[in-house]
Structures are given as structure tokens and as C-alpha cells.
């Protein structure tokens, strides 16, 4: 069924592109030069009839594959066999109720308009206004496919508009290039004179270049949305298929460049180059068909940006300049100087058309690029860019903490500071994870725990501890290091904070359960000890400024404290582990536990500000909290350097 869907999609994309490209060629490329040449010669081109038959054939293929696509989607959406999907009206529900169905219903209408207008135009000679109208309809018919793809599902309106627009442009440009190739071949083979062939080829190359430029620009926008990062390009199946697609595109570009630079100028004089050009155009078409087949598959896959990538190389690049040694910096500067010299050599060679200068220049440039890239190379593992399958919650953190206490604390210490009881006996000092964990990708921490570190006493824990168990230890380390990082966060909003608050659920009487991360709004987590904190909690409950400032207040008793008995809004019920895990976040920088702490956590779960102790003037602190909440960064990103000095 998946294979049928891929094939149907590919045929539908291809056929819809052919219709558009064909009409574009007829209207703007073959147009007047063809007519003049045909009138002046006894050999009539007959492109009209040829173009008509071809367009109708492509339209028929497009209709059949389109119907097949809708039926297959209905089967998949409702999880039922084909007979049932048709018999019980699921196909109709798809057309009536889903966005995909709306797009296809509208396109069916356009298909009808297009077919009728082509039949009406059949007897007419080629004319730009008439075929122009058909062209517009064919363009809309093709471009609307963007409304049925990945782009259309974005939750953000602006993202959706930009992505759908880029997708539509991509489809039109691909159709303009690929769809124009069959009639181009026809024109080249049946041209009434070498001059007519040359003129058609010349005009086609303008169209081709415009399409290539549009393809590249829109392709970059699309891949940024869907692949997300360079990592996903190599680390996921979607990305790898995209790399193959790009390679095919590069080959097609090379053929097109040969046509444009070598064959086209000789067309008028040399009949052999006409045949070569036609043959090359057929090669381009084959490449195009392969690309469309890949597109058929890509649309059914999970895009790279949504999958945990598996990194295929044993190194990755880290462009954090601060981490570069002075030796590497010197090498980098030398590379830049030599690269400039190589570019000068290439340009001089091109000017004098002396290949013996340009080619060594190019080779030098490639070598220099590799050398300079190696400066930024750091060791990487298959899981380096993996995202944890285990969520970052109080539950997973406390389970990870239990494993850590049992298997890791002997060397790394109870607080993960690298000072366990047997640390002194080891050949190499265990890492202070409380300090370092946030500075390494989580995927590397996972790999080191699972497989150990060669040349150090760090053993491997896989398979004694399962993958999920190891990820839980990683989550504990993130929480431990986040608590450590929180000790240097004060009342001023820390825009560079890396301290992440683990998610947890809480219940206020009479309301549904809520979670810290689920609401995506700022929260003030008050860690308290009774009786000292009693007055502060009562004052918080009566101060409505926080509520008006859209800051949720979640009060959590520190271990050993009674729960607050006052205002109901501050009597949130939380699991026992929440107190234990969050107690880490109440430590002062000298490691002394504070009996009262308040954390301002932004909508992405990052600790942005922290107040220790009970304020002498609670109202002043509330004003400061509200002010800080107004200045939280809009979007949080988690920068993680690939490596750093030890």
C-alpha cells in the first residue's frame, strides 16, 4: 500500500508537471520563432497537434493517478480496504471534510476547465493569449498540490504561508523545466531549419535558467523547514533521500550547462549538435523522472526535522570559535590566505582560458577546504545528535537519580561532582558532571554511559542498563547540572541561562491537572519550608499582580516541610518526588540548602531568574517578578557546545 501510494504520487506529480511545462513551452518558448520558421518553410512543424495530444495524454494520466491518490488516502485515513472505503462513502468524507480533499476537489474542477479549454483550442493556431489562459489554469492545478503536502500542516500561520508559497514555486519551476523537455526534443528533431532550432534552444535556455534559480531558492526554504539542520540531512532517511535528489539535480545541471555552453552556440551551423542536444534533453528528462519518483516517496515519510537522527560520521563540526586553540587559529588563517591565492589563480586561469592554472587552483581550494574544516572537527558518535526518547520530567529524573546513586556515585560522587569514595584510586579523575553535563550534547552523555570511554576507567553500562534507563540517567545529569547552573542565577533575567526545570504535573482542587511545561506560560515555582515561609505564601496568595502578569504560582514544600494550609490556589498537589528533585534548585552557591527559594521559569521550561530566602518586603519582590516576566526571551534555544576544554 505504501509502495502504491509512492507510485501514484510520483505519477501524479510528474503528469501535472508535464501539462504545465508543455503549455509554458507552447506559449513562451516555441511561440513566434516556431511560427515564423514554419511559415517560411515547406516542412511544417505540426507542434499544435503534437502539443495537444501530449497535453491531453498527460491530463488523463494526472486524472487517473489523482483519483488513485484520493482513494489510497481514504483507505489509509480510515484504515479500511479499498472496497469498503469506496462503498461506505469514506472517499466522499475525505473530499468533503479534509483539507487534502478540499484541495483535490478544487483541482478536479481546474482539471475540467483545463481539459475543456484545451479541446476548444485544439483547432486554433498557436497563440499566446489563448494558451496563456490555459497556462494559468495548468499552473494553478500544479501549484495547488503544495496545499496537500507537509507544508500545509504547519501550526504557525506565517510559517505555513511561507512554506506553502515556496513549495508552490518549487512545483511550478520543476514543471516549467521538466515539462518543457519533451516538446523541446520534438521541436529540435522536427525544426524546419537549423536557425529555427537554434532560436527555440536559445529561448528554452532562458526559461531553464529562470526555473533553476527558482528551484534552488525555493528548495533552500523548503529544506530549512523540513530538514531543519545539516545534521538531519545526513542522519535521517528523509535527509539521505534528499541528498540523492540533490545529487541527481546536480547531474541535470551539469548536462544543462553543457547544452547551454557547448552545444547551443553551434546549433545553427552544425546539425550533429542538434541531435546531441535532443539526446541530452532526454537524459535530463530521465533524471527528472528519477527526482519525481523520490518526491513521491519523500511526501510519505517523516521529515528529518522530526526524527531523532543517527549521525553517520565519527566526527562533527563545532564552529564555537572560543574553543579553538591558538595553533588551530593559526592554521585557519593560513588556510584563508592560501585559499585567496587559489581563487586568484583560478580567476587568472579563466581569463586566459588556461586550464593548467584553473585546475590546480580548484584542487588546492578543495584541499584547503578539507584542512580548514578539520580544524573544527570534534569526535562524534551515532547518538551525538539524538534526542532523548525519555521526557525530561521529575519522574524520569528521580528514576535516573536512583540508578546514578547505585551505579555511578562510587566514582562520580553523590552530587555528581567527580568526588566519589573511590575517585582517588582511579588512574584518571572522574568528570565533574554537575559542572560539565550541560556543555555536552545529551547524545554524547548517552554514548559514554552506554559504551564507556576508551583510555579511561569509565566502563560501559550497556546492556546491563537498557537504553531508556541510560536516557533517564542523562536526564538526571541534566537536572543536576541545571541545579548547579541555577546557583549563579539571580533576580535579573538571565537570557543565556542553560538551567532547565524538569516538567511535573500539579493539581489545584476542583481543576483538571496541569503541568509546568504544558501551558507554555511563565511560572513562579516557590520552594518553601513552614513555618518560616507561611507569611510569604499568604502574601503571594493575596497579591493579584502575578496573576494579572500571567505568571502562574506553583508552591512546592521542600523535603521535611508541612504542606501549606492557607489559600487553595497555593495548595497544589504534587508527587512526592517533586519536592526531592526541586530541592536541588534551592541550593545557594556555597552549597548550603536555602529553606526558601523562588524560581521564575519561562514558557519553555528554562529557569530565568531566582530569589533566595524570604523577602523583607514581599510586594517589592512581586513587582520585580512581574517586571522580569515581561522581559523573558520570546523563544528559547538550547545552545550546546560540542566540546569544551577540560
Amino acid at each position, binding site marked *: 500500500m505504501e509502495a502504491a501510494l509512492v507510485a501514484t504520487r510520483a505519477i501524479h506529480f510528474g503528469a501535472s508537471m508535464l501539462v504545465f511545462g508543455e503549455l509554458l513551452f507552447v506559449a513562451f518558448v516555441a511561440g513566434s520563432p516556431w511560427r515564423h520558421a514554419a511559415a517560411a518553410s515547406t516542412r511544417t512543424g505540426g507542434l499544435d497537434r503534437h502539443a495537444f495530444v501530449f497535453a491531453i495524454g498527460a491530463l488523463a494520466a494526472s486524472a487517473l493517478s489523482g483519483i488513485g491518490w484520493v482513494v489510497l488516502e481514504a483507505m489509509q485515513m480510515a484504515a479500511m480496504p479499498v472496497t469498503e472505503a469506496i462503498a461506505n462513502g469514506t472517499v466522499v468524507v475525505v473530499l468533503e471534510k479534509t483539507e487534502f480533499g478540499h484541495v483535490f476537489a478544487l483541482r478536479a474542477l481546474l482539471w475540467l476547465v483545463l481539459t475543456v479549454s484545451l479541446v476548444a483550442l485544439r483547432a486554433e493556431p498557436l497563440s499566446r493569449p489563448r494558451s496563456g489562459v490555459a497556462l494559468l489554469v495548468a499552473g494553478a492545478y500544479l501549484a495547488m498540490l503544495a496545499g496537500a503536502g507537509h507544508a*500545509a500542516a504547519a501550526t504557525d500561520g506565517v510559517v505555513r504561508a511561507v512554506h506553502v508559497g515556496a513549495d508552490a514555486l518549487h512545483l511550478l519551476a520543476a514543471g516549467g523545466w521538466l515539462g518543457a523537455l519533451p516538446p523541446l526534443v520534438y521541436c529540435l528533431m522536427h525544426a524546419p531549419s537549423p536557425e529555427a532550432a537554434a532560436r527555440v534552444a536559445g529561448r528554452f535556455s532562458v526559461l531553464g535558467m529562470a526555473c533553476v534559480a527558482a528551484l534552488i531558492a525555493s528548495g533552500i526554504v523548503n529544506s530549512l523547514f523540513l530538514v531543519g539542520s545539516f545534521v538531519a540531512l545526513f542522519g535521517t532517511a528523509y535527509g539521505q533521500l534528499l541528498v540523492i535528489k540533490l545529487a541527481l539535480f546536480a547531474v541535470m545541471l551539469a548536462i544543462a550547462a553543457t547544452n547551454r555552453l557547448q552545444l547551443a552556440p553551434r546549433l545553427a551551423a552544425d546539425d550533429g549538435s542538434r541531435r546531441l542536444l535532443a539526446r541530452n534533453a532526454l537524459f535530463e528528462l530521465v533524471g527528472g523522472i528519477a527526482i519525481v519518483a523520490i518526491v513521491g516517496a519523500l511526501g510519505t515519510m517523516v521529515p528529518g526535522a522530526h526524527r531523532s537522527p543517527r549521525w553517520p560520521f565519527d566526527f562533527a563540526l563545532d564552529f564555537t570559535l572560543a574553543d579553538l586553540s591558538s595553533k588551530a587559529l593559526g592554521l585557519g588563517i593560513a588556510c584563508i590566505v592560501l585559499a585567496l591565492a587559489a581563487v586568484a589563480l583560478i580567476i587568472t586561469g579563466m581569463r586566459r582560458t588556461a586550464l593548467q592554472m584553473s585546475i590546480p587552483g580548484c584542487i588546492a581550494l578543495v584541499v584547503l577546504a578539507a584542512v580548514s574544516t578539520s580544524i573544527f572537527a570534534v569526535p562524534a558518535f551515532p547518538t551525538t545528535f539524538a534526542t532523548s526518547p525519555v521526557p525530561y520530567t521529575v519522574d524520569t529524573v528521580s528514576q535516573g537519580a536512583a540508578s546514578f546513586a547505585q551505579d555511578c556515585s562510587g566514582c562520580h560522587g553523590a552530587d555528581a561532582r567527580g568526588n566519589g569514595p573511590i575517585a582517588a584510586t582511579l588512574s584518571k579523575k572522574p568528570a565533574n558532571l554537575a559542572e560539565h553535563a550541560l556543555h555536552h550534547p545529551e547524545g554524547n552523555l548517552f554514548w559514554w554511559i552506554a559504551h564507556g570511554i576508551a583510555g579511561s576507567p569509565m566502563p560501559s553500562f550497556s546492556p546491563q542498563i537498557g537504553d531508556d534507563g541510560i536516557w533517564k540517567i542523562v536526564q538526571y545529569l541534566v537536572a543536576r547540572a541545571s541545579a548547579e547552573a541555577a546557583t549563579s542565577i539571580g533576580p535579573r533575567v538571565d537570557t543565556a541561562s542553560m538551567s532547565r526545570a524538569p516538567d511535573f504535573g500539579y493539581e489545584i482542587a476542583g481543576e483538571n491537572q496541569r503541568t509546568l511545561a504544558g501551558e507554555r506560560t511563565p511560572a513562579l515555582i516557590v520552594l518553601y519550608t513552614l513555618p518560616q515561609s507561611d507569611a510569604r505564601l499568604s502574601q503571594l496568595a493575596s497579591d493579584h499582580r502575578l496573576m494579572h502578569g500571567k505568571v502562574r504560582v506553583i508552591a512546592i514544600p521542600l523535603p521535611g516541610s508541612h504542606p501549606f494550609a492557607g489559600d487553595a490556589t497555593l495548595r497544589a498537589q504534587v508527587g512526592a518526588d517533586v519536592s526531592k528533585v526541586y530541592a536541588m534548585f534551592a541550593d545557594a552557591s556555597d552549597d548550603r540548602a536555602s529553606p526558601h527559594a523562588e524560581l521564575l521559569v519561562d514558557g519553555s521550561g528554562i529557569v530565568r531568574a531566582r530569589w533566595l530566602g524570604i523577602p523583607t518586603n514581599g510586594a517589592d519582590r512581586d513587582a520585580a517578578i512581574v517586571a522580569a516576566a515581561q522581559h523573558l526571551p520570546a523563544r528559547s534555544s538550547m545552545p550546546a557546545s560540542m566540546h569544551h576544554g577540560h
Partner: protein
Amino acid sequence: MKRSCAAVVLVAAFAWFASAPAAAHAFLDHAVPAVGSTVHESPQDIRLRFTEQLEPAFSHVQVADASGKEIDKGDSHVDASNASVLAVSVPALPPGKYRVQWRVVSVDTHVTEGDFTFEIEP
């Protein structure tokens, strides 16, 4: 030329930063009650937020008790104000373990499904 270069950089930069909430298959982003959590009061409804907009006609969620019997009110629906939220109401539930099963179609036609449990403790 300079201006068009700047435009290209701007578009690329925008696309880069906007790439986080990108589209595709709908995955469960967040649920209330939270996945695997324990609550002390019966929820009025079960709400699931996905990473994408859903097709209401083909997106469903149901809740079963420990014996596997469906106990929700059968009104599984996509939230009218937020097309990426799927919800179903439940009657006042006695303490126990409950399983939430969902199957959704995102607006780009992809099907995803899954399940999770939550517990009600007295």
C-alpha cells in the same frame, strides 16, 4: 545586487529560526492528565495536544478502564479553537488505572497512533 543578497539572507535566517515548529506527522506533544502521571481527582476531560493540526473527521481518542472497557462519553472531538488539540469528556471516574488510545490524521494526511496510561489515586 546588495539588496537582493540581504533579502536572501533574511529569508534564509527567518526560515532557519522558524524551522522549529515545522510540519509533518502529528506527534503527541502534551496530554492532560500527563502521560504516565497520577492524579487525585477525576478529570472532566482528557486533552491531547499534537505537534500539528488534525483532520477532525479522522482523528479520535478513547479512554478505557483497567478491564479494557471504554468509559469515555464518546464525544471525541478536535477543539474548535485549536485544531491541534483532541479532547474527549469522561464521567466522574473512580480511582484506578486508565488507558488513553488515540489515532489521528494530520492535515497533510499522515496517520499516527499511540496510547498511554494515567492513574487516579484517592
